[in-house]
């Protein structure tokens, strides 16, 4: 069985994963500059070694309601189609190799806004890992 590496992270207490190959790097405390009149799902822009990177508000993107306000300080930098973008998350977990047999399509009662972003769920021994679709994150923007 071939296993695939997933980078894991937390947003609003939910455990998420994304293909580790898509992740360029993880950064802490990058300064954000607000872009007036931009989409609600874009929190602003950040400077990553001279490149301007849009920062995605994952709470907005996934339709989650923050319990104690948004305090994400970690950005996961993805590379998509030649552009960089940053997902703002609360915390990061380890990179874990997973095999196909624990994977399941998203349940039917999943909220519609999130369904386009979610590939499915890995059933881990202790909890569920929600796998995000990179192209979904990009498309919705």
């Amino acid at each position, binding site marked *: 069985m071939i296993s695939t590496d997933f980078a894991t992270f937390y947003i609003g207490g939910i455990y998420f994963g994304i293909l580790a190959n898509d992740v360029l790097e993880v950064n802490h405390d990058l300064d954000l*500059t607000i*872009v*007036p009149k*931009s989409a609600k799902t874009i929190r602003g*822009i950040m*400077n990553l*070694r001279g490149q301007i990177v849009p920062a995605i508000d994952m709470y907005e993107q996934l339709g989650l309601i923050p319990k104690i306000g948004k305090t994400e300080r970690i950005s996961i930098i993805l590379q998509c189609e030649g*552009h960089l973008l940053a997902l703002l998350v609360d915390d990061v977990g380890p990179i874990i190799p997973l095999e196909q047999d624990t994977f399941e399509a998203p349940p039917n009662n999943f909220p519609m806004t999130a369904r386009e972003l979610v590939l499915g769920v890995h059933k881990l021994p202790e909890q569920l890992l929600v796998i995000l679709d990179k192209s979904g994150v990009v498309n919705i923007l």
Partner: protein
Amino acid sequence: MSDDDILPEFIIEAREILDQLDIDFVKLEESPEDNKIIRNIFRAVHTLKGNSGFFGFKRLEKVCHAAEALLGKLRDSVIVLDEKTTNSLLQTLDILRAIIEGIEKKHTEPDGEDGQLIESLGLLAKANISADKSTLDKHVSNLLAHPQELTGIYSKTEDQVEVNVQEWHEIEAIHPLPFEAEEPVNQHHDVVPPVKVNLELLDKLMSLVSEMVLARNRLLPFSEELGNHRLSSAIRSIDLLTLELQEGMLKTRMQPISQVWSKFPRLVRDVAHKCNKKVKLIQEGTETELDRGLLDAINDPLVHMIRNSIDHGLESPAERIRQGKSETGYVLLKANHENGLVVISISDDGAGIDIDSVRTKAIEKKLISAQQAQTFEESKILDLLFAPGFSTKETVSDLSGRGVGMDVVKTNISKIGGSIAIESHRGKGTTIRIKIPLTLAIMSALFVRSNQEKFAIPQSSILELVRLDLTMGDRGLEDFYGTSVFRLRNSLVPLIHLHQQLEFQESHPDSSEVINIVILQSSGVRYGLVVDEVLNIEEIVVKPLGPMFEELNDFGGATILGDGRAALILDIDGIAMQSGLVEKMQSKPLTDQETISRVNEEEVSMLLFELEGLDNLAIPLNLVHRLQIIRPEQIQKNGSRNVIQFGPHIMELVYLDAYVSGAKSKKWKADESIPVIVHYINAIPIGLVVSQVHDVMNTAQTLQEINSPQKGLLGCISEGNSIINVINMDEILGMHRMFDVKTQYSVLAQLSAPE
């Protein structure tokens, strides 16, 4: 290496060959006797043919072959070049170019029928022979002058001439013929060929270097802070290396302007033919270098303007003779560097622009009112040529005036941070001057604050900065048909509030006491942008915002500040469009006749003073708090500033002669008293040092603005026989502040002069 890898190289080389051919053909037409040029052309076509054969581009090969055959005859002087032949060969070039472009797009040859062209090339190669005996005879006599070489070279039959090319060249080698001998081909043996580098890679390196400069800027303060000698010296090395790296990197992207200009001789020839005019193109400063990206950006505007010059500017040969001018008109292209800008001018010695017809047309198109038309100066009328939708030519010609006019040219130039000005003398000609920055990558920008955020405004679009202090009795903002306006001297300037435009929460109510306005020239309209605070001028590196922000018209990009944060760059045109101001201004131009007359009646008090070299200067008396005479020994230093004790305050001295155009810097003697005009800004005194203070004058005269404004001067008042120059305090203090602000970047002190 597969075909796919080398195909781009083939295309690049083919393009280079075609560009060179364009130049050579025009040269050849000027001096058809020049065998060297023909040989160059022949060789180039031959190379192209060979390359095409290698890639199996049959169509290209066939056309090249036919052209080569004709060129061969020309080279061997079997036929002479006439206009028909030149036209056919140029037509061939166009077809070759079209094929190459097709290959570039689809990687295969585009379909097309060239039979006719090939046939006509073939006919030309034959037709010319009989008519050409005289030329031949000339060559024969040349050869006869060197009889020892003649035997066996030349053979001549009834209707066919064959020259043994090989031996012909040998003769040339031994015995230079009266026409110029071929130069040695391999003369550049010791020159290392340049390396071709991918533009993307260069851009990436460029951006990294720019970032490195900013990173260095962050490092610099530590050098002093930590006081560690070894660290300081390491930082200094990094500082120097970075500087050199940046300069070197900028140079790699610099290309001589001849890259773009090389296509123009052909263009001029074609346009001149179509218009039946005789035109000579003169190019000066072809070695002037500018950024690769800019070169691409100026190409279209220049083509448009050259066409204009020939089509609209120059008169027909008959008309020119009637005017006592030479039959051939000239178009002069000139490029040079000036104060860190590249200045390109296009001049012609044609008829010049008919100011009256421009005026009439502008009224017709409702760009100005009939009343304004009378009061506008010539330069202002000429500026109307750049207004959207303006075209003076009655008929839409094939060459210029395709509905897109000078406004598009202007928009394109301002997009790259440039400016454009036009100057015309009736009967003598027209000159259009473009000023563009050396490089796209770095530009200077003014930072402003709105709602606690910093924004950058490209300096090229800033006309001036205005600070309204309502507590000091300045007139406030007014409402003009629903548009907030501000009275700037004699004209009304519509305002846009940046915090409203960007949909911030109302942070700065209009009732505040001080209003900062940045007067901007966008491509459609002049307007004032109200900001919370005017900060400093910095050189910035422009970064694209990326596809996620495409719908946002308010921003032209982003940049990275010294502290590593990103900041947005305002798009001046975009904001004007978005706010609806452009439409509003076009439907209801701001005319304010009644204001002007009222200003006329007002009497103003002015304090007259002089600077070294400038006698009649004046400052409005309401800006003068008091006059003070100081002794040189009172002056003390605060860093690089001169200050004096003034009551409870430390008063900074501003030497006016440094900021007013035409004034010479005065050397004060040790025992001389120094007159100082005390001016208050926000309850802080500033001492304006002048050479001498005269008296106070009351005048009812209107201030007249002179174009283009002089540094530090607002305009003139005529009083009796003399002309009084009124200084522009806002501008002077603005300039002074720019000098004074210590930023981590090099601060550009000079506010861009309004064009």
